[in-house]
């Protein structure tokens, strides 16, 4: 018995023998599992043998006693497959599934001899070995059976009852598919001998000998008697040229009729031969087999009809429409100028040549420039000398000498201490520069035909730069307006007007006021006049003193961010009718 404390086996002797393999029905192995006493559990005993095979058996008896469960396994033949040690594990399940599994214990089964048992459906290892031996025996039997079949064949071949008795005739051996000598001789006696004259014409049945049965050269003239073959006996097409050797048929062998026929035939063949070289009557080039002719379809009458540039060719109409007659070409060409490189070459007389342009439009003007390329002096003269153009001008920085100026005399640039460059629009050989004409500190540049333009452009840029610093009149606006006063003060003023001049962000306003006769009884009395031309944007209210035509002292003021002029009467005064007040003010408007 193996006693388990729950899952762990105790009191287990691994060498317990549970019987003999294949013959172990007499043994019962008992187990007792302490701590498990549940009637609803079903148990299974799982076995695993040394060769890896497994088996599961249902215990023969399960009894619970309140403290544990006693399990008895009555071992049957089917249960143990192989002798030796094997592993045992008990598993308990209920309806919910696996609830219990012991640890693996080890038992032992003795070996037994192989015992055949028809009722034994699940062979143990001993039976498996017997089965393998049976397979080996069957393979051996199969080999023996093949050897027996081979031997039987040999025996049948050597069976004397199947052999013929020794004999001298065909029939003696039962041979039926061969002729006897007598039969052969009899048949040969019916054949034609090779001797001359052995075959007579009458012995040859009509059509008995056909062309196919005669080898080439089998029938020669030597074998045919004179006159034996007449024309009537020769069927149509039977003898052709291939059958007749050269010289075999001569004129003397032919009858006159045959000669006539041959002549007619020869003439006919000659005609046919010549006709065969002629083309049948046709309407197309293909019909006559002409490959190098032009097909009518290739002719096109317009460019849009060209479909094959290799084979299409133009019609006369096409040529007329798209090509000039030679006379037209000549006439057109006569109106064209020959290729040339000059205006004169093309006969153009309403344009200036480069040189004419230079001469006519500025390049014949010699100019001197200051350091900012401002032109200082110019001349159209062909020669310059001391005092004539640039002498003594210390502001001259550069000079341009035009193409028409051919002589620079001594002293022409005397005392031009700041002269650094002289650009001459001529090569050295086309101008005379006398010694001392140009200070040695200046550099002379010949062939400088563009430098005057360069200097003039620099001058214009310089001029623009200067102009940009000048006042822009578009920022000036002048005008006038009327100032309004409230009804309360309408008894004090006849009119109030102004003229203004807006310059950029400022405005100058000249005020004219014509008073009525009135008195100021209290100091600091004021009149507000609205309608100045712009809102005052000064950061501090502008104000100043002013005096009327009758020398009354007032102050004017403009409230910041307003367009109203306020007149403040500083003293008690009596104003006369048409007393005037005129003053100018200036304030910021942006």
């Amino acid at each position, binding site marked *: 018995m193996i006693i388990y404390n729950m899952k762990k086996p105790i009191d287990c002797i691994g060498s317990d023998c549970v019987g003999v393999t294949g013959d172990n029905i007499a043994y019962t192995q008992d187990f007792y599992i302490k701590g498990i006493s549940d009637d609803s559990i079903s148990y299974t005993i799982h076995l695993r043998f040394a060769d890896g095979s497994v088996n599961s058996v249902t215990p023969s008896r399960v009894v619970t006693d309140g403290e544990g469960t006693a399990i008895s396994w009555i071992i049957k033949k089917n249960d143990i497959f192989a002798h030796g040690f094997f592993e045992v594990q008990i598993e308990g399940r209920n309806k919910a599934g696996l609830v219990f599994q012991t640890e693996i214990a080890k038992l032992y089964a003795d070996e037994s001899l192989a015992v055949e048992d028809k009722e034994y459906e699940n062979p143990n290892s001993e039976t498996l070995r017997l089965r393998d031996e049976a397979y080996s025996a069957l393979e051996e039997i199969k080999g023996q059976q093949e050897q027996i079949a081979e031997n039987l064949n040999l025996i049948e071949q050597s069976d004397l009852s199947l052999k013929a008795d020794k004999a001298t005739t065909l029939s003696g051996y039962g041979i039926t598919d061969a002729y006897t000598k007598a039969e052969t001789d009899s048949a040969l006696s019916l054949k034609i001998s090779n001797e001359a004259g052995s075959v007579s014409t009458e012995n040859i049945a009509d059509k008995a000998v056909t062309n196919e049965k005669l080898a080439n050269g089998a029938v020669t003239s030597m074998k045919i008697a004179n006159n034996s073959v007449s024309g009537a006996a020769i069927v149509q097409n039977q003898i052709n040229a291939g059958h007749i050797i050269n010289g075999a048929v001569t004129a003397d062998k032919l009858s006159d009729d045959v000669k006539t026929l041959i002549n007619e035939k020869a003439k006919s063949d000659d005609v046919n031969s010549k006709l065969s070289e002629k083309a049948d009557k046709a309407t197309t080039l293909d019909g006559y087999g002409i490959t190098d002719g032009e097909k009518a379809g290739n002719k096109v009458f317009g460019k849009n009809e060209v479909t094959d540039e290799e084979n299409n060719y133009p019609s006369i109409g096409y040529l007329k429409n798209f090509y000039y007659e030679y006379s037209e070409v000549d006439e057109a060409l006569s109106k064209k100028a020959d290729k040339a490189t000059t205006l004169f070459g093309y006969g153009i007389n309403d344009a200036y040549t480069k040189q004419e342009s230079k001469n006519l439009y500025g390049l014949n003007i010699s100019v001197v420039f200051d350091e900012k390329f401002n032109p200082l002096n110019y001349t159209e003269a062909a020669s310059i000398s001391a005092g004539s153009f640039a002498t003594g001008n210390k502001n001259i920085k550069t000079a341009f000498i035009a193409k028409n100026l051919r002589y620079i005399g001594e002293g022409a640039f005397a005392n031009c201490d700041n002269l650094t460059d002289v650009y001459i629009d001529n090569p050295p050989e086309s101008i005379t520069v006398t010694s001392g004409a140009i200070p040695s500190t200046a550099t002379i540049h010949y062939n400088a035909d563009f430098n005057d333009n360069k200097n003039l452009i620099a001058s214009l840029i310089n001029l623009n730069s200067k102009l940009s610093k000048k006042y822009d009149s578009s920022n000036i*606006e*002048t*005008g*006038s*307006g*009327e100032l*309004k006063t*409230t009804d*309360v*003060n309408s008894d004090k003023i006849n009119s109030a007007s102004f003229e*203004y001049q807006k310059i950029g962000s400022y405005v100058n306003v000249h005020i004219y006021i014509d008073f009525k006769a009135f008195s100021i009884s209290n100091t600091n009395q*004021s*009149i*507000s006049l*609205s*309608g*100045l*031309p*712009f*809102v005052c944007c000064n950061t501090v209210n502008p104000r100043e003193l002013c005096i009327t035509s009758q020398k009354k002292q007032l102050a004017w003021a403009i*409230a910041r*961010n*307003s*367009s*109203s002029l*306020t007149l403040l009467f500083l003293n008690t005064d009596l104003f006369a009718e048409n007393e005037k007040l005129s003053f100018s003010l200036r304030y910021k*408007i942006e």
Partner: protein
Amino acid sequence: MEIKEKITLDMLTPDSVSILKQQYITIDGTDIKVGDNIRNAYMNTQTEREYLKGCLPEDYYNAVLAMWGNGPTVLEPAS
């Protein structure tokens, strides 16, 4: 010969506007300016709103009011 008046609403802000009036005549399709520029600035006070209404055509006045709104934004100058 008809004299046309060109009105410019200059420096229009919610508080003020400067009205420039210029007169032109047209000769051979070309406008030629005649007379001085007339310019007055107006503040968005109750009094000057009324001045403005009196000196501007209605469409220009409405254009100013579109910026100024329905009421004055600047106090009347103290007298």
